[in-house]
């Protein structure tokens, strides 16, 4: 069931002129508001993603982290605001944008193998009514290899562990061969070994010149894994390089009174990492 959107008349929100977005910025969000059932989840979000960075979206539960990604990809209707990729509308640059959905969003008992799922990343290149060719299958196999799952390529996906399933989704995104990746909790429910493997893949993606924007839950690892951070709680509390933005003050603003000792620990880590640079 899709959420019901109660549109605010566009002219109420969008009085200003269309801002000039830099064509270098892989993702520019301007004055974006998203609402479910009358209740706004995101309010007036403005954000410009820097190119070739690993960006974490961080915030408490219900802050609208997943919503931000889905609304950018037109998976959820926007009440207002604009989203541009490299200064262009999403539908014109789809092939340059990859997506990793939440692992729980699909039924893993579906009758497909790990390789089949990765091949889905090639479907747009394949075109309608065309079966998967050998070349595409081999490209998909290489992507599986990059996440260390070549041996389980033919296994039905319910026989993979949670961490392997997450990596299959990552491999599918790699198979899209995009320049910007939006990832919804790529580290959710994976063991520490898988987490390290995923971080490796993300770093390799960055060194290939790509940009990754990922919803992330673990504040402690933000300074270690990511270059930039978006602190989100219905609106963007702060966004920018981790060293500048990931501060105790900003975290407190984002999490309100719910800032746990965990976040304080994260702050300590952040300071250490910052000083270490």
């Amino acid at each position, binding site marked *: 069931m899709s959420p019901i959107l109660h549109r605010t008349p566009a002219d109420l929100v969008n009085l200003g002129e269309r801002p000039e977005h830099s064509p270098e910025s892989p993702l520019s969000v301007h004055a974006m508001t998203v609402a479910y059932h009358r209740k706004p989840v995101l309010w007036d979000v403005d954000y410009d993603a820097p190119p070739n960075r690993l960006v974490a979206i961080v915030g408490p539960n219900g802050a609208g982290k997943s919503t931000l990604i889905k609304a950018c990809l037109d998976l959820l209707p926007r009440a207002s605001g604009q989203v541009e990729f490299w200064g262009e509308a999403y539908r014109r640059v*789809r092939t340059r944008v990859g997506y990793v959905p939440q692992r729980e969003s699909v039924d893993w008992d579906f*009758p497909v193998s790990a390789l089949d799922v990765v091949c889905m990343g090639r479907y747009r290149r394949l075109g309608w009514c065309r079966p998967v060719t050998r070349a595409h299958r081999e490209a998909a196999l290489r992507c599986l290899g990059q996440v260390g799952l070549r041996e389980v390529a033919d296994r039905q996906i319910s026989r993979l562990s949670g961490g392997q399933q997450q990596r299959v989704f990552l491999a599918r995104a790699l198979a899209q061969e995009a320049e910007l990746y939006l990832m919804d909790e790529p580290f959710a429910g994976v063991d520490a070994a898988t987490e390290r493997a995923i971080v490796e893949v993300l770093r390799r993606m960055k060194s290939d010149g790509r940009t990754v924007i990922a919803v992330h839950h673990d504040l402690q690892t933000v300074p270690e894994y990511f270059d930039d951070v978006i602190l989100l709680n219905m609106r963007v509390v702060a966004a920018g390089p981790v060293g500048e933005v990931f501060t105790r003050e900003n975290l407190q603003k984002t999490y309100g009174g719910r800032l746990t000792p965990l976040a304080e620990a994260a702050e300590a880590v952040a300071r250490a990492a910052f000083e270490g640079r």
Partner: protein
Amino acid sequence: MGPEMSAHVLASGDVPTLAEVLDTLLLRAGFNTGLVVVGTTLLGLAAGVVGVFVTLRKRALVTDALAHATLPGIAIAFLIAGGLGLAGRTLPLLLAGAAVSAILGVVCIGLILRHSRLREDAAIGIVLSVFFGAGVVALSWIQANAATGSAGLATFIYGQAATIRPSDLVVLAGLAIVAVLAAILFLKEFALVCFDESFARVLGWRVGAIDLAMTTLVVLVVVAGLQAVGVILVVSMLIVPAVAARFWTDRFGTMTIVAGMVGAVSGYLGSVLSALLPRQPAGAVIVLAAGAVLLASLLFAPSRGVLARAWRRLSLDLRIAGDHLLEVAHERGVGALPAAQIDRIAREHAWSVRVRRMLPLSLRRRGLAEGGGGGGLSITAAGRDRGARVARNHVLWAEYLVRHADVAPNHVDWSVDQVEHVLSEEIVRELEAALAERGGAPVESTS
């Protein structure tokens, strides 16, 4: 004999002879019977193929509502035909009415979901029962008040395969071709939309259009099946073959082929049986035939079947119990275990009675032990190796957790066999070295 009886080989309840059975199976039992058998086979094929998309898109209940929602359409189409002065039972008009009202039912479910806070199951239940109730009322009103030709209308509720005519056969053949072609052409499109709708959207696919194509196929199958199988049972021709097929394969394409075959075989066997058993409505027998295939799949399928799973469970229990036993023998340095001692180990590890009873046989068959006297076991050389290896891996695992707990996989199918797979070679070597250094538990290298 009325037309609805003409498909039956036998007039009475006699037991059919072998010759009659063969004739029916080989389509030699008369033109009408042959027509029915071929027609329901084609219908089964189409329904089986389309049913795969229905079940994997999790639309089984919606499809049931869709089928029930055809009934008022049939009644209204009949009244319109009467008003236009057409012969009452103009089949194409009735089926068009059925299709329109089925689509209306699905639209109603969507509207209820959008404009109320009801959940999907409630919305489906409402549409299914209200439409079906309206259809039943309309049909009985027609039968009480309307003029001629209304007698056959009620057969749409349970279906009557015997009314299949040569022209219907052309329609059913066309339907089967369309279903198979659609499955071949759009296999990957249908699969992705069923598996991960949002990813399909991100690729820029129009998921609505693909869903519409799938729903159109469903409506076609339902409407074509109304005549033979009826409003109530037609949904099972879609669902049952697909569910049965899922037991035999883990691949989408194979599942579609198997489901089509199961559907065709059910349609064929069901109509043959109903021809041989007078007064058994073909629709119900077809559904029962499909149900029998499903039951057999559920029980006997090699990897997902109930029996296979029970067997795997038992083998695993036996393997674990055997490992415990051999580990104990290794630790105590004994080569033979009398029955009383095995009983004590069984109690300590809370083995089930069945495992305790089957364990000696299992160990003997795996060559790990031989029968000693009085129900005891004497451990073979292979059994001693295994025991040493289990003990070593348990120690390694404990050491691993101590040294590397921060990175320990949080979800490991814990079995001693997997220690080598879970842990990399360097870690195993590192752990062994650490243990040797501490002069801890003796670690035998078994590789």
